[in-house]
Each structure stands twice: as C-alpha cells, then as structure tokens.
C-alpha cells in the first residue's frame, strides 16, 4: 500500500486568469449596457428559490 500524501487545496494553484460566477462584473454599478445577464440572473435566482420552497 502506497503512503500517499494528504494535499491541502491551498497548495494547489488556480489558473492564471480567474473566472467569477455567472453574471459577476468588475464594475457592476457603472453605466448601463444592453446586457441580458440580468434577466438570466432573475430567472436563475427565481428558479432556485422556487426549488428550495
């Protein structure tokens, strides 16, 4: 039986460019763009709430 190490996740690097969750933005409160992510987010959050209840 091999004696394999227990590796802490903090020792495992992320990719060079991180990817945020769906709909996340660096400048969410500035300007207004024709971006239907908001509608997707509304539908997504609503569906999660509906499922939980």
């Amino acid at each position: 039986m091999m004696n394999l190490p227990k590796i802490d996740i903090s020792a495992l690097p992320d990719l060079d460019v991180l990817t945020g969750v769906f709909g996340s933005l660096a400048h969410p409160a500035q300007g207004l763009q024709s971006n239907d992510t908001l509608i997707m987010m509304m539908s997504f959050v609503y569906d999660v709430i509906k499922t939980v209840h």
Partner: protein
Amino acid sequence: MLIGPELMALRGDDTPQRRIQQRLLDQLGGWREAGAGAELEAELPRFAKGAALESLPALHALFTPGNCAAATLVDGLTDWLLTELERDPLGQVPMRHQCDRTLATLVLVRCQGASLALQAIDGAGFALKPPAQSVTFAGNESWDHVLAGSAEVELVRIAGQRPGGVELDRTGSALAPGGIVHRNGRLAAQIFKRVPGILVLLKLHRLDHDNAPSCEYALDDGRLLHQAAGHPRDSRLELAVALLGRMGRADAAPLLAAMAEETGSPHLRWQALRECIALDSRTGFTALSAIARNSDDPLAVPAGALRAQLLETYPQLAEVPLCPA
C-alpha cells in the same frame, strides 16, 4: 412604523390578497395557454436550442421592421395587467420582474437560457449613474425592438486580440421607435450614453451554450478586467464541487475526477481537479496525469506544471499508476 389600514386589515385576514393573486395567476395562465402568449411559449424552446428566428413565425413577427405584432402583444398584456393592478394595487405581478431607479424589467416568457422580456429605461435615473468604465462580451444573441422613446448609444466591437486584452472599436449610434437591433454578444456590445425620457424595449435573448466565459474589458484601453462563467450551470456545479471539498467527501473523488476529465469549462474542470487532488491524492493525481498527457486539452500545460510541482514536493506520487486501478 406606519402601516396603512389596507395592510393592517390583511394581517388579520389575508383572504382578499390570496384572491387577488389567484386572479392574476389565472389571467397569466390564460394568456400563456390560450392567449397571445401561447404561440410564444410554443416557439421559445426551439429558439433556445438555436433555431433560426426566421423559422419561428410568432417570435419573428415581433422583431420584423414595420410589423405591429410587438405593439399588439405588449398592449394586450399590459391592458389586463394594469387593469388588475388598478383595481387591486396590492396585487403582485405574477411574472419575474425587477425594478430600480433606472431599469424596470418584466420577463414575459423564458425557457432554457432564452427569454422574451419587456424593459423600460428611465433616463432621469440613468443620468445619475456614473459613466461606464467597462464593456462586457458574453456568449449570447439578442434582438432589441424599440417600442417607445429614444436613446444615444455607443456600439462597441472587438476589432482584434492583443496580450492581456482586445482592441475595441467604438462608434456612436441612436435608437429610435421601431428600430430593431440584432447583436452577437461575443462580438458586439451596446452601451447607453443618454436616454431622454423613458425608453421601452422588447428584448429577445438566448445563450449560445458554448460555455466560454464572458469577458469584461476596460473601455479606455481594452485590457481584460474580469471574466465570469458563461452559463449559470457552470457556477452551480462549481459551488457543488467546492461544497464537496469543504465537507471532506472523499467518496466524491471519482466523480470530481470524471468532471475534471470531461470537455467543458476549463475553469470548472480545474476546480474539480483541485478538489479531487485535495480529497484523494491518488485519484486526483491520476486524473491530473491524464489531462497533462493530452496535448489537445486546454488544461494540458497548467496540469503538466502542477504535476511536476507535486512530484517534486511528494516524490511518492511517482508510484501512482497512470490509469485508475
């Protein structure tokens, strides 16, 4: 706290409120099942799966220049909705909706990443917002039909790629009643500059299901500021993966290894791989080695680097067989 007499009465007996909501739901059900919404409900699943808009007559009519279908649809919908709310102002609109000082959105129909929504932009509220500093390109396709009002906008296109970002091409444009704008969200974005009064849009939208992340760039020099998952499913899976890791669910390691080796979002696969290695170094290292060996895999290079790093730190990992036992 001041509580109006109508609300106070409902505290004792909410029957009137439940009756209002049931009536609104019945009206909406009728609209969706037998009314103007029925054809849209029938066509939207095909649209969500990528069918050409031209092959879907009811949806296509809403976004055809000179066709009055969009105005007729919205007039019919708002007619019964506003009549009900005028009669019972405490009724809650039974469609997904969101409203702030600038933007009011009412989702009329939605299905699997596609939606038809009515949106109003209040120019006075918009004028209070700081100007845009960034622009986002995402994997979606959209059609906007201007039903009322006007706006000055900036069309932003990706003119070329460069290290750490893109070259942006920015041109001014205007929206006017009757105008229809079709946009591939990977290539073009539209930023509002000025809205006199209120702009009302009918919006049709679908995700392109390619799983590529959305990218947010600085408007002034095109540098990449942020990228985000291209589909809510990827974020949901990433949260589940992280949760399994925090719960110490070593029994989930084979599942995480399979996720890491599937095709799909590289970010999600990498997170599954990290959690897998942390939960069960044998299973995780086997998956890592398989990914590193596949030169066609976009994760081959970082997987190879991590594999070399782990072998240096933990030489005993060299004894792990390349294929699962």
